C-alpha cells in the first residue's frame, strides 16, 4: 500500500542561490529514509525565480545569467548564439557570479528573457536601464 504524503509548507531562503529571493510556502514532505523532500519540480522553481528577476527589474549578474539560461533550457552555445556571441563570453559572465553585466548586455539579456518567459516589461530605454539591487528579500508565492 502506498503511504500518503503529509505535506507541510516551508519558506526557502536564498532561493536558487540568490540571496534576495525567498520562496514562500514551498510544499514539502518527510521521507523516512531520505529526509525532507521538496514537492515541486526544479524546473518550475527556476521559472518562478527567473520571472521574478525580470519582472522586478533586478540587476543581472553572472549568477542571474546562469539561472535564466537554465530556466530557458538553453545550453551555453545556444544562449550565446542568440546574442551573436561566443559561448566563452557567456561562460565568462557566469563565472563572475557577482559581477553585473555591462549595460548593453544587460538590456539585451533582459529583453530576450522577458520575451522567452512571456513577461511584460517596458521597452522604453529610460525604464529598461532603471534596475534595482534588492536590499530586502523578494517573496515569491509557491502556490
Amino acid at each position, binding site marked *: 500500500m502506498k503511504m500518503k504524503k503529509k505535506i507541510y509548507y516551508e519558506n526557502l531562503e536564498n532561493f*536558487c542561490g540568490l540571496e534576495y529571493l525567498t520562496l514562500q510556502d514551498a510544499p514539502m514532505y518527510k521521507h523516512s529514509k*531520505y529526509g525532507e*523532500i521538496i514537492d515541486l519540480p*526544479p524546473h518550475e522553481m527556476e521559472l518562478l525565480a527567473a520571472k521574478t528577476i525580470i519582472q522586478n527589474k533586478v540587476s543581472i549578474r553572472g549568477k542571474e545569467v546562469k539561472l535564466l539560461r*537554465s530556466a530557458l533550457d538553453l*545550453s551555453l552555445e545556444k544562449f550565446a548564439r542568440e546574442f551573436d556571441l561566443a559561448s566563452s563570453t557567456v561562460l565568462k559572465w*557566469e563565472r563572475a557570479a557577482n559581477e553585473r553585466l555591462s549595460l548593453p548586455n544587460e538590456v539585451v539579456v533582459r529583453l530576450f528573457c522577458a520575451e522567452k518567459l512571456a513577461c511584460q516589461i517596458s521597452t522604453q530605454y529610460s525604464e529598461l536601464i532603471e534596475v534595482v539591487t534588492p536590499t530586502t528579500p523578494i517573496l515569491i508565492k509557491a502556490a
Partner: protein
Amino acid sequence: MKYERLLMALELVRSEIILNNFILTKHAWLRMTERNVTRLDIVECVRHGLAFVEEEKFHFVGYDSEGLKLKVICVYNDATLIITVF
C-alpha cells in the same frame, strides 16, 4: 538477468532526469545553492556523465557548465528523487 534489470533501471532514471521528471531533497537543493549548480547542470551531468549503481542508488559523475566536477546521486522511489549533489 540482474545486470540487464539494473541497466534498464539506470536508463529509466537517466531519461526521467533528462525529461525534467524529478524532485529534490532539501539537502540536494541546499547543496545546489551553495555550489551554484542549476537544474541544467544536473541534466547535462546525467546526460553525458559516467554512471554507476550502488545498492539502490544511481551515481552520475560529470562536469557542470563551468567545467567543475559534479556528482549527482539519486534513487527511484515512486518518482526519480535526487538525494544529493556535490
